């Protein structure tokens, strides 16, 4: 693992940006009573950060309901994400999608997705675009240990494999699907074991170690870009909060378990690894921490001060073209 200073700092910055977005943005969204369907990826920062660090802006990525980290790591601006969570017109999706649908096509970010597994074939399709148009782009499909049991993953891995598409399948195994333990729901000890059935490499990696993530993702991305087909990477990780921040995870997991994982915090792990090397100082990182706090302060302010969508936007962007009157025909809408 050879990395220059800038690369290291960028990884750190991405991780703390995600952490701060989750720690600040989710409670703020909750206070504004926007939605209960907001999922924190705090604890999982190393996976999103490490994987996306291996991608360019042109590369594609399909995400999940727990996708804030993926978005930030792929380059989506936190303030437009915050505005989206707050349901504002300035949001990434103009307030139409919310946390579970954040997208930024200009960054190859094909959307977080509210249906578990549903974004996987979208990434496969984006990889197909890359192949057919010879764009040299790679597509990443994120999913969880729960998503690993959806049939569409199996179909998508088979399809990507026979067409040798540039896809990296990334399982974030955080041990639970809502309250259901992965070890109960998964018939295999490791999701990565399934790769063999699809003729692709399958790796099981520590997802709390951003350097290990970078390494594994770097290889899989290179393989994909070289035209050698897909890979399946499984990262062991942990979400610090409940499924949403509104449930109490201690009803289905232990304090000891949480402590065990928090002790392996990916941001702390970064500091513990990098600081002893001397090239980067604690003060620098502390300074960045403060900047991330400030960034969220600003993002919340930006979002709060942003206008709400006009009521009439209810009818916008259902289609590219459709007779406007048909969207409300005979429904006796007030607007």
């Amino acid at each position: 693992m050879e990395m220059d200073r800038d690369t290291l700092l960028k990884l750190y910055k991405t991780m703390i940006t995600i952490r701060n977005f989750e720690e600040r943005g989710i409670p703020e969204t909750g206070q504004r009573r926007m939605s209960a369907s907001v999922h924190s990826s705090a604890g999982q920062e190393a996976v999103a950060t490490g994987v996306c660090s291996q991608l360019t802006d042109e590369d594609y990525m399909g995400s999940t309901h727990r996708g804030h980290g993926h978005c930030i790591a792929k380059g989506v601006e936190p303030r437009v994400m915050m505005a989206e969570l707050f349901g504002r017109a300035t949001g990434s999706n103009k307030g139409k999608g919310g946390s579970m649908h954040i997208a930024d096509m200009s960054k190859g970010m094909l959307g977080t997705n509210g249906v578990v597994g549903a974004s996987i074939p979208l990434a496969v399709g984006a990889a197909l675009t890359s192949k057919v148009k010879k764009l040299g782009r790679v597509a990443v499909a994120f999913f969880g240990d729960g998503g690993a049991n959806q049939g569409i993953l199996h179909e998508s891995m088979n399809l990507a494999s026979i067409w040798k598409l540039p896809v990296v399948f990334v399982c974030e195994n955080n041990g639970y699907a809502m309250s259901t333990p992965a070890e109960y729901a998964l018939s295999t000890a490791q999701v990565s074991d399934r790769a063999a059935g699809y003729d692709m490499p399958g790796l099981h990696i520590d997802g709390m170690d951003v350097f290990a993530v970078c390494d594994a993702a770097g290889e899989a991305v290179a393989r994909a870009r070289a035209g050698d087909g897909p890979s399946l990477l499984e990262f062991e990780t942990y979400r610090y909060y409940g499924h949403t921040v509104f449930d109490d995870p201690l009803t289905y997991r232990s304090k000891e378990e949480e402590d065990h994982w928090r002790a392996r915090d990916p941001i702390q792990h970064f500091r513990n690894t990098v600081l002893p090397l001397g090239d980067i100082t604690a003060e620098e990182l502390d300074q960045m921490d403060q900047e991330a706090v400030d960034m969220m302060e600003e993002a919340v302010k930006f979002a709060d001060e942003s206008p709400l969508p006009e009521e009439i936007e209810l009818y916008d962007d259902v289609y590219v073209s459709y007779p406007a009157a048909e969207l409300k025909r005979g429904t006796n809408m007030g607007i």
Partner: protein
Amino acid sequence: MTTTASLATSGTREIQFREAVNECLRQEMALDDSVIIMGEEIAGGAGREDQGVVDAWGGPFRTTVGLIQEFGRDRVLDTPLSEAAFIGAAIGASSTGLRAVAELMFIDFIGVCMDQLVNNAAKMRYMFGGQVKVPFTMMTRIGAGFGAAAQHSESYYSIFSHFPGLKGVVPSDAYTAKGLLAAAIRDDDPVVFFEHKGLYGEKGPVPEESYVLPIGKARTVRAGTDITLVGISKMTWVCTAAAEELAKSGIDAEVIDLLSVSPIDYDHVIDSVKRTHRLVVVDEDTPICSLAGDICSRVAEEAFDYLDAPPSRVTAPHTPVPYSRVLENNYVPNEARVISTVEKLFNR
């Protein structure tokens, strides 16, 4: 303003919709060993051997709380995130001697498992020449209004009216929830039970003993003479609220609570329209090929000569469900829209 006998008698204790569902499941499972229940999170973590039988959540909306403690792992099964397989398995189990209840967490996800419902549950009996019964129940959730956006807010019941071989019920309160769920579980055909997320906390009188309400029967929740309002699930209460308002301006609306989406109790609606001569159906689903449209079309066909105004509907627009509250507020039909629609029918 009167309510029909089909409403629970007053004097009974009041419980929440969610509690009524839970109580029904408990009673049906106690009554009949062949009833099992499966779904994501229904025991919530209790599936893990090393923690013993601990009920973490009791379902995402606590409707299945306590079941695993009472009936054990064999009959209360947490499932992996594999709707096609576990709903298919529930159908297979139901065609071989069990009465399986399976939960699809939100109706929005129906597209990942619809084939099992439509091509197996709905058709096996017919295709097999009557050899099999499929006493399968699917419990699922509908309803917008919670900032849950386009993939967690739908009310796709119309497609269950459309497909022959399926039945469907849409309870509107705790009383009908308990009685219709019992009916669904005891029914020898596949039945989909739609729970509206906006009703879980609503309390109402519910008898403690188990009882069954007939599938395919609507009920009149407010008698009236001037217009018939038909509500589906939570929309029933939008209709009654609108009716109270309309009464102030001298329009006496009859409100019918549809309760079943298959069979549809057209006769109940048509009888009412033959007396009131006007109809508005209020449906939270989108308008085209909808249940609202279907009921309007039947009334137009069968009560044509009785109608004094066009059979009309108040529905969601032909759009996905938007996230921002300011948009979503207009999406779901409300009293104001019902009232203005009714008024238009009287002022044509």
